[in-house]
């Protein structure tokens, strides 16, 4: 039973070695405008995407999108809207009533409207999920074409926890009717800046 039995069984039963295939990434390359494609896909997956002229407009924009919100956590230097401070030592359960979290997006992926965020960007792992609304600040230069490129670009990171997040949480489990807002954040807004 257990490890040794499993490994022994595999060794006895596995076929002759088949080499791993060479992947020709050029087969997937397309002439596309990554920014336009990214914006289209974010909208397709139920996210909101807004291009800002200046980093200085972040807070104004967020205030206009969420006028009545008071419980805000900001994990980005560019926003001063945070009303609640957290650290790695905060009990994640205490974030239950957070209304808005503002987090830095590291990389956007045009083919699926996803943004890579990681533990570098927010101190408590549950934050982007437990918050009611989530806003990501993404530099529009940090958008790549597809996941193959994305994995190259995030390949050198310190690996703890990270995710590709594409749009707000959603489900279609009730008669295939799409409902935006399931267990995670009810909405996702991406503010594109140009630094």
């Amino acid at each position, binding site marked *: 039973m257990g490890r040794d039995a499993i490994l022994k069984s*595999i060794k006895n039963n*596995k076929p002759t070695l088949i080499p*791993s295939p060479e992947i020709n990434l050029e087969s997937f390359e397309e002439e596309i405008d990554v920014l336009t494609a990214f914006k289209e896909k974010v909208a397709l997956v139920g996210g909101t995407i807004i291009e800002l002229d200046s980093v200085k407009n972040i807070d104004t924009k967020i205030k206009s999108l969420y006028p009545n919100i008071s419980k805000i956590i900001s994990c980005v230097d560019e926003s001063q809207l945070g009303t609640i401070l957290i650290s790695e030592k905060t009990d*994640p359960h205490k974030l239950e009533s957070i209304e808005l979290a503002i987090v830095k997006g590291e990389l956007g992926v045009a083919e699926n*409207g996803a943004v890579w965020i990681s533990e570098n960007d927010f101190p408590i792992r549950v934050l982007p999920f437990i918050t009611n609304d989530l806003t990501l600040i993404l530099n529009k230069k940090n958008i790549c074409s597809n996941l193959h490129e994305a994995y190259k670009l995030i390949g050198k990171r310190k690996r*703890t926890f990270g995710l590709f997040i*594409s749009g707000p949480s959603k489900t279609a489990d009730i008669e*295939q009717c799409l409902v935006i807002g399931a267990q995670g954040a009810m909405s996702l807004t991406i503010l594109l800046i140009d630094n």
Partner: protein
Amino acid sequence: MNHAKKAAIFNKNEAKVNWHDKALWYVREKRDNAAHDVKGWEYLREVASGIKANVLSDLDTYLIEFESNATKNGIKVHWASDAEEHNKIVHKVLETHNAKKVVKSKSMLTEECHLNPYLESKGIEVVDTDLGEYIVQIAKETPSHIVLPAIHKTKEEVDALFQEHLGTTPSNGNPEYLTNEARKHLRNKFLEADVAITGVNFAVAETGGIVVCTNEGNADMGAHLAPVHIACMGIEKIIPKEEHLGVFLRLLARSATGQPITTYSSHFNKPSEGSELHIIIVDNGRTEQLSREDFRSSLHCIRCGACMNTCPIYRRSGGHSYDATIPGPIGSILSPGKDLTKHSSLPFASTLCGSCSNVCPVKINIHEQLYKWRQLIVKDVKQPVVKKTVLKIVGKVLRNRTLYNLAGKSARFMLKYAPRFMVYSKLNAWGKARELPEIKNENFDTWYKINRKNNG
């Protein structure tokens, strides 16, 4: 009861069959649209299949590499030969932490191991937090589809269930209202949970990390609130390198639901400070499947469900007709390996149309494996005497031209001259809903002799 009988019962309600069929065909069409959007889709499938073939041919090396890297990052790795061992390991972790409340996100492996009833018998509350799984849990049913567990339930049925279990007000099955009520209820469960159990979509050997994909965020809500996270995986979930996730994540959601990617693709490499992350690596019949040359590639499966959506039989019979944890085409080539007798009707629940093999993102030749299982089943599983005898006689007739002519003549004579009540009796399953062809005066052999006798 075999698939045919269950399917016949399902088909008594034609409106429901049409509804079920259309719902899943719609998902298949969404998959087609998403696939069209990807340049090089067929090549991507080829690559994915090749990666999986390499993995299976060196699986022990990759698993050892995975374990080593995961352990270095503070992850506790366990191994389970079978379902019982898996359940015991889960329970042991729970006991160590005095855990009484567990939240679970989608894991077909835990379904396969019947984990829920095992834990419940030990006095532990297990809540399935994927909305579809939650629905079937409170309905006391099993999932009928591996990605869309409650696809067989109408919104009115869900409404009734939620009224009973969540005290919701009647809403005619309003999906937004019901989803929101579930959100509130499940949120409390996440906040109170002692342990979170998830599945594993992909385990990366070179980093020792795992990826869990959801649309709802329920895996993460569970894993990041509870101090202990147990992730359960079959041995075949391994992929060699992180860059291979580019291939598989591009294929998975598109094949499953037609989305370009799931909302959340969470990469776990280290437990968070003060938390524990356990991974249980499970065999439960997989190494045995690995030994079967004809069926080995069924282990490529990434559990996308595309084969179910495209299967005209699955759409019209529903997942429960298969009576197997994993239903549909892939289930029909995995399950006989576990219990040939119990699942002997499954490889025959198919016309071998081949559509499943074409939509499979990892190019499992499902329809060919169905054909091969049939050959094994008739040899090893007791066949209905009538079927076996008739077919063996047919074999003898078809290899003997004289007998063949005789059989042909008799059949034609019978069909032409026998009274209708004899021909369309209860024994004639063909004739239940179909006419037999009108018999012409001569067969082709006779016509040829008369009209072309100089040739041949």
